[in-house]
């Protein structure tokens, strides 16, 4: 069975989506066990796949039994093996942690919600695992459509911000499709590896240049890279908790993965970095993204919205790191995909727990939370430390590689932006710690009113959150192993 792992990762969630959808009309209690089992299988298969890749190298799977340029093929190498594990793990932990809040927020639509949830995970896993440029587009649309459905179920402003996301997302996906069309018209192939083989004689063609730029713009729209980020904060803020804590950690990171895949596999780094000489422009855009994200986050008085602006800044980290055009920067970007997915999951799960108990996420709702929800806030401290970049947590190490890459490339603006955003994060998070530490002001000034009793979120929500916090530290401690055994092989030899 192990040679079927690449397809099982996608097929098991897909089939279970149909099972959940039908179970919703028969017996609603079946939905949760099915989704957990399916995601568990996906995690198992992706870990097994990563181990196979570490042992034997690239795994290729021919769908329908047709060899690659004719049919669709899955290529699993070190890069997407790693991302697959992260995506499936985040999805599994999130669905367990969000069971209670899904039941609270959608008492009668839990089954369709679970179906959309697992279809979204299917789409994201499919994007990561595929080796076919057009197949990627179809899965992109699955992930996008399910995302619209999940995001729009939130507060009353959610449909409007989701519709804006839909316009932007459709333009992005269509640009990607157009770029693939340009590649097809000059090469005649859709398979990524095959295109990479056919492209080198055509590097001077304007159509290839246009294909590259159009694909990049499309993917940047989808990942909310700086000038194209306007849809993200509102869409994520008004979303229901379970949806935002799935989509915020995964969608932007998977899009960064797509960008890195396009640069590394389809167009090759020589073309992207050497022939085009666009590096400086993009890295400066990333610098602006980081600075603007940090400043806009400072202006917010609302925890969830502040975190969404931090996501915009984090996207800047990864795009900038990838476009530095050297090995350390690329390592930092790939490592940051892993770390950022986990730490965004951590802080958004904290928001879920707070919303579940306090029914709000504005700053004034957070008072006295350290006493009320000590475990949740403990995990929040770990997540915040990781976003700031304090050493034992994983956030430090990816920033370290990014700074190393920036110094190697001689790009001091990027170094300055990284340090600036770390400082802003310190201000942001310590302001929140301060609010959470103090009790709410009471009307009568006496010292006699009893301290609020501990009122922690249910065990089912807290335990996965604590697991995520532990993983954050563990990934930090084992960063060396991840870089030396996985990421080192994910980057082609040509990139120094």
């Amino acid at each position, binding site marked *: 069975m192990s040679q079927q792992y690449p397809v099982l990762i996608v097929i098991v969630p897909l089939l279970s989506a149909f099972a959940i959808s039908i179970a919703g009309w028969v017996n609603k209690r079946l939905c949760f066990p099915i989704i957990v089992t399916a995601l568990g299988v996906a995690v198992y298969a992706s870990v097994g796949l990563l181990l196979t890749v570490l042992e034997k190298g690239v795994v290729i799977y021919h769908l329908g039994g047709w060899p690659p340029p004719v049919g669709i093929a899955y290529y699993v190498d070190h890069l997407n093996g790693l991302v697959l594990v992260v995506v499936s793990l985040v999805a599994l932990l999130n669905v367990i942690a969000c069971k209670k809040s899904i039941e609270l927020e959608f008492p009668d639509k839990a089954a369709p919600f679970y179906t959309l949830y697992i279809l979204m995970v299917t789409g994201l896993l499919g994007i990561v695992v595929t080796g076919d440029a*057009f197949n990627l587009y179809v899965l992109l649309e699955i992930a996008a459509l399910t995302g619209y459905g999940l995001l729009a179920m939130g507060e009353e402003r959610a449909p409007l911000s989701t519709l804006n996301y839909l316009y932007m997302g459709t333009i992005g996906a269509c640009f990607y499709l157009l770029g693939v069309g340009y590649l097809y018209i000059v090469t005649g192939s859709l398979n990524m590896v095959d295109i990479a083989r056919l492209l080198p004689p055509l590097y001077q063609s304007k159509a290839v240049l246009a294909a590259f730029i159009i694909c990049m713009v499309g993917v940047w729209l989808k990942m909310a890279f700086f000038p194209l980020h306007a849809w993200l904060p509102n869409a994520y803020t008004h979303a229901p908790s379970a949806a935002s804590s799935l989509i915020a950690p995964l969608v932007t990171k998977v899009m960064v993965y797509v960008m890195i895949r396009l640069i590394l596999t389809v167009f090759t780094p020589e073309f992207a970095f050497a022939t085009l000489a666009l590096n400086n422009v993009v890295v400066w855009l990333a610098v602006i993204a980081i600075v603007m994200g940090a400043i806009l986050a400072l202006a917010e008085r609302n925890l969830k919205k502040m975190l969404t602006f931090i996501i915009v800044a984090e996207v800047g980290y990864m795009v900038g790191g990838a476009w530095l055009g050297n090995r350390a920067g690329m390592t930092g970007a790939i490592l940051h995909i892993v770390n950022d997915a986990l730490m965004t999951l951590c802080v958004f799960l904290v928001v879920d727990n707070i919303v579940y108990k306090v029914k709000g996420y504005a700053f004034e709702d957070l008072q006295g939370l350290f006493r009320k929800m000590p475990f949740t806030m403990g995990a929040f401290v770990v997540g915040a430390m990781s976003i700031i970049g304090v050493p034992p947590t994983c956030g430090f190490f990816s920033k370290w590689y990014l700074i190393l890459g920036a110094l190697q490339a001689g790009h001091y603006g990027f170094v300055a932006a990284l340090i600036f955003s770390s400082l802003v994060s310190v201000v942001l998070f310590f302001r929140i710690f301060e609010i959470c530490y103090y009790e709410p002001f009471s009307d009568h000034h006496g010292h006699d009113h009893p301290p609020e009793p501990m009122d922690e979120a249910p065990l089912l929500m807290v335990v996965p959150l604590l697991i995520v916090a532990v993983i954050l530290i563990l990934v930090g401690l084992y960063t060396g192993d991840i870089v030396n055994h996985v990421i080192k092989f994910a980057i082609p030899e040509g990139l120094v």
Partner: protein
Amino acid sequence: MKIIGLIITIITGAFLVYAAVDFPAWADPNSPASTYLSPYFIENSMKDTSVPNFVTSLLADYRGFDTMFETTVIFTAGLVCFILLRISGGKEPETRHYRHVLTGVTVTLKEGRKIPASEDFERIDDLWTPPDLIIKTGCRLMIPFIQLFALYVIAHGHSSPGGGFQGGVILGASIILLAISHDLRTALERMREKVVAILCPVGVAIYAGTGTLCLLLGLNFLDYSALASVLHVDPISARSHGILMVEIGVGIAVMTTMIWIYNNISSAGKYNQGL
């Protein structure tokens, strides 16, 4: 906003025009797109799958995996429309109107009262216009032929234009036509919401299930030649039959999704008389 839009549009357009200069000339038989991969499909489709329509064999076999997700996209759209619009467990309006079909008398009932369950009364909404007899009868006559044509399109997709998508859409359109010419309640009597909602994932599951069956029989996912041992035919015919199986699945999924989306949009999720 208009000026920004104009600037962005002009920049993008100019860039695309700049890039299009390097394209191979239009309809050039020697362009890479026509010489690299497509001759394989044209020359081998009959040998590999015994399907004369290259588009069908390419759609459901060589690139069948894309098509499976395409069907999933359709299913997702139906589900999203349902989850966004359907008002479940909504309160019944305080006054309800019933129309006696034979006499045309309208009965208005207050909260909680019921009429004798009989075929003579039909439920109507506040805004009700009598349906036109000619349109009603005409549509009623047309619908069976439309459905027959749809089934032909699905079944004959192997050797003529058409297939699961087109046939499924036409099948769905026949029910939508019923809903437009009569009202949504009539269409819902023929096709209950629960039936639609269950058939839709079942249709996609037929597709994915066929693929999984191939996987369980020991070959790769969606490699229909594995079905040869089950169907007792040679692998090439097995591919042809596999394509038919998935087309039927696609047809079911697309038909139900179209009906599902129409039901939800036309009644804004209330499932009353519709348009």
